[in-house]
């Protein structure tokens, strides 16, 4: 009886709950999720796990929290105490009392006594076992384990942010292609004309005429530059309002008001086709290599080229959802198109997109580590898994540099692939049989 009730309860549940239940049956995927949480945790708390500064210390009767303070300093909210600023080598400072992070090395800290590739098993010249380099060092004595811990942050950041960009583009384009198809977006002739006319003009005023201003602002600081950039976007939007407002009265003229069909599906599909036949890695390499190294650029480029999979998924979903009854109901209630798409169509087709996003994150992480392995796109002072692995290639005697960072990349990429597989199985269990 109780079992029956349980079953009924299960039947009652929503689509999301069914997917979740199916997902939980997939052991590799569940384990991947656990490992993912672990890696995310390490990435988020990397500063507290591996840092040459202590978490807490007491010098001459005064207490300090140098790592916390560092965050405030980076945000421009505080200044590091002058006596702390003076310290260059935290290892040798005499503390009254101290709590050090688990690994007392920052990824960029050079340990001159253990330079030239010291193996994890070799005898290391360290003051105590606390300071042992557990995964060895590189040529200038940087701790490999610390580099790997901080590398996880970069990997996760690139994977998640690149895919966020890709998702925004992919979901938008896929949704409009799927919802409107080839013959559901009709608009008046005058609106198209005016929009086409105003588009270059708005672009010109918002971006080209303000180019000088933006470049100066970016030269000043990243924040003021970004602010100017956002202003440009706002300006662009405001100017583009003009043609659409103008079109409202003008379309009453019969000639201007003639409805024209916009084949959005064809346009988006062609775009996807073009992007997919471009040798992606080569193009990403080209874009990233010719500009100054920056992680943000790497993320943006990967994101801009990586949205096709997501767009295809959401397009297919919306094609299906479009003909369902609740969509008709929403239309009958007189909801606006944007509301139907944003509030009704997209939320109900997002689950399958998760598959594509999971695989996409794996691919983005792989691309980023490939780039940093090749030594491009990542600033010299940033340590990534790919960079550590690249050192292993140059120094064959340092086997630990070849094995550990590569293994980290492998694990991260694999868990995302397994998650993608698990989601695919959970969403469409037929595929598994």
């Amino acid at each position, binding site marked *: 009886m109780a079992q029956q009730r349980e079953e009924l309860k299960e039947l009652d549940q929503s689509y999301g709950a069914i997917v979740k239940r199916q997902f939980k049956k997939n052991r590799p995927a569940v384990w991947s999720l656990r490992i993912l949480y672990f890696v995310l945790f390490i990435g988020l708390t990397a500063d507290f796990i591996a840092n040459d500064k202590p978490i807490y210390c007491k010098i001459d009767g005064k207490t300090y929290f140098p790592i916390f303070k560092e965050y405030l300093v980076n945000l421009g909210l505080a200044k590091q105490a002058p006596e702390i600023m003076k310290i260059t080598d935290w290892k040798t400072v005499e503390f009254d009392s101290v709590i050090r992070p688990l690994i007392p090395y920052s990824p960029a800290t050079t340990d001159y006594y253990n330079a030239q590739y010291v193996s994890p098993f070799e005898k290391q010249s360290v003051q105590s076992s606390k300071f042992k380099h557990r995964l060895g060092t590189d040529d200038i004595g940087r701790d490999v384990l610390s580099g790997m811990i901080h590398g996880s942050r970069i990997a996760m950041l690139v994977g998640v942010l690149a895919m966020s960009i890709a998702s925004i583009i992919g979901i938008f384009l896929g949704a409009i292609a799927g919802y409107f198809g080839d013959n559901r977006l009709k608009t008046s002739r005058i609106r198209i004309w005016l929009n086409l006319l105003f588009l270059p003009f708005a672009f010109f005023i918002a971006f080209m*005429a303000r180019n000088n201003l933006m470049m100066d602002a970016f030269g000043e600081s990243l924040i003021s530059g970004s602010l100017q950039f956002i202003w440009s976007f706002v300006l662009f939007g405001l100017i583009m309002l003009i043609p659409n407002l103008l079109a409202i009265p003008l379309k009453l003229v019969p000639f201007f008001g003639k409805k024209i069909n916009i084949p959005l599906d064809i346009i988006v599909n*062609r775009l996807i086709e073009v992007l997919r036949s471009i040798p992606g890695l080569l*193009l990403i390499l080209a874009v990233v290599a010719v500009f100054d190294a920056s992680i943000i650029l790497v993320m943006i480029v990967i994101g801009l080229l990586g949205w096709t999979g997501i767009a295809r998924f959401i397009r297919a979903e919306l094609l299906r959802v479009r003909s369902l009854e609740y969509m008709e109901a929403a239309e009958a209630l007189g909801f606006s198109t944007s509301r139907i798409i944003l509030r009704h169509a997209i939320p109900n087709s997002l689950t399958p997109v998760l598959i594509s996003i999971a695989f996409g994150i794996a691919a983005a992480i*792989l691309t980023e*580590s490939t780039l940093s392995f090749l030594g491009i796109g990542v600033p010299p002072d940033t340590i990534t898994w*790919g960079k550590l692995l690249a050192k292993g290639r140059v120094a064959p005697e340092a086997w630990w540099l070849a094995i550990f960072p590569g293994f980290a990349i492998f694990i991260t990429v694999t868990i995302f692939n397994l998650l993608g597989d698990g989601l695919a199985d959970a969403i469409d269990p037929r595929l598994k049989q």
Partner: protein
Amino acid sequence: MLKYVLKRILIFIPTLIVVSLMIFGLSKVAPGDPVELRMSGGLQTGDTGQASDKQQGEKVYFEIAREMGLDLPSFYADFTSRAYPDTMYKVGRRYEKEMLGRLCSKFGNWPQISTYYKSLKVFELSSYNIPKTEQTFDQLLNARATTNELYREHNEDVILVKLNNIKNSVSQTQTYDEVVINENGESDTTAVTKNLLQPLIANIDGVINNFTAVQQNAKPINKFIPKITWHGLKNQYHRWLFGDIPWFGKSDDPTLASYGFLRGDFGYSLRDGRPVWSVLKEGLAITVSMNLIAIFLIYAIAIPLGVYIAVKRDSLFDRVSTVTLFILYSLPTFWIATMLLVFFTNSEYGMDFFPSFGLGLDKITPETSFFSKLRTLSYHAFLPILCMTYSGLAFLSRQMRGGVINVFSQDYIRTARAKGLAESKIIWKHTFRNSLIPIITIFASLLPGMIGGSLIIEYIFSIPGMGNIAFGALLGRNWPVLFTVVMLSSILTLLGILVSDILYSVVDPRITFTKKA
């Protein structure tokens, strides 16, 4: 079918145009001056030398720029503000263009800016007319160095400071011993205080006046008025694609030198001036043949393996191999390649089985017998090809297994079994062909990956293939080589997709590309 193929090839065109625009646009926004890259090691336009040297240096610069077509406008049309002159492309150096562009968008009065720029050039040139002696050396050096800085400076305050700095520098007098012949016809040395740089003062005053004119006559409204300039077919992009030598008939104009990409003229490498094609030729042969071997191996092993695993479904072998294949598929190629390189190519770990780099092409002479040639090559190429193969192999086997299992559950297989057909016949005749369909689509997605992937593998194993050449070109911003590699690999990718689509219909007659009426 033919119609379909033609239609597909038509779709190639916009794709290739997009790729070419992307890479061309990239070369335009990327920092660095291709002419200077080409010139490096050649004539330097430094601070020393005579006016004639300086002019000669400029002449060589423009000569090379013209040879490379860089004296042309970039594109068919320009979309700029009215503050920009139509003829900006005629300004030689890139940093000067940028400086003038920034000034234009700030002050919006090109005539005055142009006067300022020209007077600065005149000043620099006239500074070479002053004989460089012990007395004048420091002042001249300072003036020229500051002038060179001014060519990159767009901040008005800094410009004025620098101009005044030059003025101060050239206004200083020098005290030196001059040999004077007195009335008695004897030579006599007297200490003279005089400014040998006197002629320059008028020049620099002119420059300062011109710059204040720029500031006073600013027309900032100009930068809010858009302007489209049509440059016609004589532009860099058109020249790169179509060349400037006419397609039909002959031209006697010796200044035209390019046949264009579409006629197989890929230009000259910026690094050593060799034709791009001769740089790429061998690399392309190496990359394509290695990829073909890898693809052949992938298909030759994966298809029977996949079928075998599917037949042994749910056995221990199936489970073990499924997990193994999944792991293989997830292993990053560059990690495996690095590991193989570290552990199997040097004596550190006592497993020095393979050479660590290259293909051993230097060991091959025309006299080498075929057999030993094969041995050298396969000895060198074993690890790289292994790296190129394993991941695709794992992926394909998994797909093949899935495909076969899928077909096994179809009704017609049950019918065949019920008829009492031999199992081998069911597998190879009924199942195999139908499960090939997904495998063939994968061919299309394998290809772009392989082109990118071979870049990494060639880099790791130092194989002189196309990927490695492309990587070198990227780092050195060797645009002609890079253009060609990107375009060729796009074309290869498109062809691969087309071939797989055609194969698709060959394997499955139900799929036709002609629309049914």
